[in-house]
């Protein structure tokens, strides 16, 4: 962590789809002021890199390829979303994350002086996070802390559907992670394996010791009075572990 500020440099926010990553970011963006966010959550004004945006873009490009008479490259259509048929896309997305973060740091070597970088993604299958986290660049990992937001698969499935229903009220363009993707890709992940079931500690990634904390995010709550302490408790522990 930077000695210039008492806040995370690179905070990696991970967990199943609809586990609460976006709600966490909404909370720190809109429901807490700068001073409180720094004091309770150790986050200064922040910038986000969320690989979902790039994933969605690639699926959109597949639509164009199909329209032009070519085979899709990474996805197939599934309901109101996309099923990722080429799992190498997930590795591509981590490489893109490395590239984008690298560009940010290169264009502003003082980036971390007064900013936190939030890195957000979700992975499934038995080598989900072991593979993804070990692909992140050393540049990111050296200043990273990992915040895993934990919900059960059933809860993830339920919230994914509920979020979609809610969005449908406002837009016909609403989309969700398709059920087949949920069952085939996100059903299991390896977080408990790589952390040996611990709620906090360190992972060794590319030879770098990176602190992590696992925050249970059930029962679901939208009440800032519940979420505030839940987040600050987890991130307080994570802040202590960074030492």
């Amino acid at each position, binding site marked *: 962590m930077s000695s210039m500020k008492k806040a995370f440099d690179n905070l990696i926010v991970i967990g199943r789809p609809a586990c609460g990553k976006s709600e966490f970011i909404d909370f720190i963006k809109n429901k807490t002021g700068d001073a409180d966010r720094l004091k309770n959550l150790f986050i200064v004004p922040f910038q986000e890199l969320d690989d979902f945006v790039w994933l969605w873009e690639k699926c959109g490009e597949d639509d*164009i390829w199909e329209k*032009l008479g070519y085979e899709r490259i990474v996805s197939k259509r599934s309901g109101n979303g996309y099923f990722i048929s080429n799992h190498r896309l997930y*590795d*591509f997305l981590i490489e*893109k994350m490395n*590239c984008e973060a690298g560009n940010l740091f290169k264009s502003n070597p003082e980036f971390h002086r007064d900013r936190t970088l939030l890195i957000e993604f979700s992975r499934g299958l038995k080598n989900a996070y072991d593979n993804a986290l070990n692909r992140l660049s050393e540049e990111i990992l050296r200043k990273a802390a990992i915040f895993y937001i934990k919900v059960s698969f059933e809860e993830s499935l339920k919230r994914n559907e509920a979020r979609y229903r809610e969005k449908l009220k406002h837009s016909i363009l609403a989309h969700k992670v398709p059920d087949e993707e949920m069952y085939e890709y996100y059903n299991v992940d390896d977080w408990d394996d790589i952390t040996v079931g611990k709620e906090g500690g360190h992972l060794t990634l590319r030879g770098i010791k990176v602190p992590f904390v696992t925050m249970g995010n059930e029962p679901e709550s939208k009440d800032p009075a519940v979420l505030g302490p839940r987040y600050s408790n987890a991130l307080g522990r994570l802040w202590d572990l960074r030492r």
Partner: protein
Amino acid sequence: MVTTFDHLLLLGRPASGKSEFIDFMKKIPDADRAKIFHISKFEEVDDFVWIWEKFMEDDLWEKAGCPRLYSKNYMPGNPGMEPEGLRLLKFCMHKFNDVIKEKYLSRPEFYNDHTLFIEFARGNQHTFKEALGSLKPEILNRAAILFIYVTREESWRRNVARYQENLKHSILAHMVPKETFDHFYTDHDWLSMTHNESNGYIMVNGLKIPFVTMNNEPESTDPSVLTKRYGDALEKLYELHEKGV
């Protein structure tokens, strides 16, 4: 009343002088540019940006342990399109349609005081005829075409010279590699499409589009030479545009 182009299509071989034309226009005050060249304040849509982005993504696919999709590193750090990447050119035409519709045609007021440059190079199998034919009518019916003509040899010479000049200032300099140039850009269909006429109209999907083929040799950086060269070509093009309306 000052009258200017809405969509000016800048076509030609690689390094024919499209970018130099745009650089030149950037340096001319708005009022003079409108009066002499019929070009308002302008914005550009250039498919090279999308092509380069895909080449950079190919680096990421490679790092992820996958084959590159469109390009090959023919020269270290300087990828070029490989034959299998041909489809990317079709993708770009689709993208022109999307981007121009979303960013410009959706704002008719843009054209009150702006010209949009639409810039691309084509050759060999992927012809100008096919490329132009894939643009939407709402783009074409506001269009005039300035084809910047240089020979194959001159295109290659300038491509290499530009690269060597850029290398002096940046390790990120790039050029069309020989393999890509030979495969994609040795020949083109522009002269046959226009029956070797230096100006006139071509029919694209039933629409009559004015064009001028501007000879851009010998190369010059002298503003007085370029002012005359560009001015004559665009004056003629505007005249055709007006007559054709």
